[in-house]
């Protein structure tokens, strides 16, 4: 494994990106099997793990598909998350999304570290473990709804979309009575196609959180917002605006990601009955199975963009200052140099090193909570519905394969 910094760049490998013919246009969508990454990436990864590609706005970027290359890209301090940098890869061809300006994901260095530590204290492994009873209760209620809907019910609607958002509400401190209101606001914010609608949705979200913050200034509440108000707002370490931004982005980041892992994860298990049977017989394999499903499933469609602030070597290729790179975790997760038989789902394997949570300073701060949610949901589902299967085992899975996250849009199950 590499040290914490990449080797000094070798002038021999320094070929300016703009002089190279692109290997492919990014992104690609065509796949031969529902749980595999698009074929063009797989083919390219074997041949050229750091490859020139053309982005939607016509500019070139490097596409990084090896395990070592992705880890270097996401952990080397020479790479920046500054979306406003002219070299930062633009996957949509549209201007930078104002919604994401000055959020944690777009910060670098000490400023990022300063705000990030305020969240990590709320998301420690111990905190996550303490939430197991709540997660179990929320899961069981969702499974009641699934059972009540009867065989043929949609697991995405009744379980995948419900559990993560209820858990996030509990964590942050959104009253259950506001659950529908909040999820409606979040959906409008995420799905708005016009910038005016999005701005209006953001204003709604901010004013809603402002009310919650005011409440916590007057009452002690044992939740993420209450803790952050007492620890950081009261001391002046955090402005009200930044507290609200941290809170709503944390909520937003934790919902759809986990929801899609529930839907696609259950679909994968139902399509691999031998693995499902193993988990049913040996529930102690569940925590490892969560990591293996996260490794195996190509969730992240558009990769993780960065821009080089200095010349830096990635997997033997020099990336020149100002050039954009896109790290693609689903391909790194199938790197045969790290994972044996990478294209097989094997719940017995140790897949802890997968890169679906990212890597480096921006790695998902709530990974412990997400892992626990998935472990509880998969586990309770298998316990409660021992004969669970796809309602129509011959039909193709209903996938949404053009969006930021690859997912099943619907999963009809029977038992």
């Amino acid at each position, binding site marked *: *494994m590499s*040290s*914490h910094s990449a080797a000094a760049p070798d002038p021999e490998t320094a070929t300016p990106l703009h002089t190279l013919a692109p290997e492919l246009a990014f992104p690609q969508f065509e796949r031969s099997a529902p749980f595999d990454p698009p074929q063009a990436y797989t083919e390219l990864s074997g041949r050229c793990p750091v490859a020139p590609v053309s982005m939607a706005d016509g500019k070139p970027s490097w596409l990084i598909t090896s395990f070592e290359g992705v880890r270097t890209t*996401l*952990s080397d301090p020479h790479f920046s998350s500054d979306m406003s940098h002219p070299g930062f890869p633009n996957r949509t061809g549209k201007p930078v999304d104002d919604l994401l300006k000055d959020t944690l994901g777009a910060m670098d260095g000490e400023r990022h*570290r300063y705000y*990030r*530590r305020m969240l*990590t*204290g709320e*998301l*420690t*492994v*111990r905190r996550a473990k303490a939430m197991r009873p709540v997660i179990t209760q929320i899961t069981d209620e969702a499974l009641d709804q699934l059972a009540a809907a009867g065989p043929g019910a949609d697991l995405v609607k009744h379980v995948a979309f419900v559990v993560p958002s209820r858990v996030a509400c509990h964590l942050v401190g959104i009253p259950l009575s506001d659950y529908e209101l909040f999820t409606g606001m979040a959906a409008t914010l995420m799905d708005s196609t016009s910038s005016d609608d999005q701005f209006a949705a953001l204003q709604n979200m901010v004013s809603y959180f402002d009310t919650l913050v005011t409440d916590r200034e007057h009452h002690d509440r044992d939740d993420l917002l209450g803790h952050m108000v007492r620890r950081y707002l009261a001391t002046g370490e955090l402005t009200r605006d930044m507290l609200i931004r941290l809170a709503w982005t944390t909520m937003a980041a934790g919902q759809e990601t986990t929801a899609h892992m529930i839907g696609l994860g259950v679909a994968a298990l139902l399509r691999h009955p031998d693995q499902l049977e193993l988990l049913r017989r040996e529930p102690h394999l569940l925590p490892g199975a969560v990591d293996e499903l996260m490794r195996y499933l190509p969730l992240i469609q558009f990769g993780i963009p960065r821009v080089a602030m200095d010349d830096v070597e990635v997997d033997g290729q020099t990336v020149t200052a100002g050039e954009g790179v896109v790290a693609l975790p689903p391909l790194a997760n199938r790197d045969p140099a790290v994972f044996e038989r990478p294209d097989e789902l094997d719940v017995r394997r*140790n897949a*802890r*090193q997968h890169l679906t949570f*990212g*890597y*480096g*300073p921006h*790695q998902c*701060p709530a*990974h*412990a909570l997400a*892992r626990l949610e998935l472990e509880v949901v998969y586990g309770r589902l298998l316990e409660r519905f021992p004969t669970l299967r796809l309602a129509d085992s011959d039909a193709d899975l209903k996938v949404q394969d053009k969006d930021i996250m690859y997912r099943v849009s619907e999963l009809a199950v029977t038992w």
Partner: protein
Amino acid sequence: MVKVNIDRDRCYGLGQCVLAAPDVFDQDDDGIVWLLVEEARPEQHDEVRQAALACPRQAIGVAD
């Protein structure tokens, strides 16, 4: 026995090490790592190496 050392200044409080080796690593109230033991017993060596590999900040050193 292997000696374990941590760089608390590099640590970002992710807790990957706590998941990998819960008897060796813990987190303080800010999520920053601290060591429960400075030397890992032979049966913990594998877990400690896993923790060092999983650390997204490469803040864990293991010396035989």
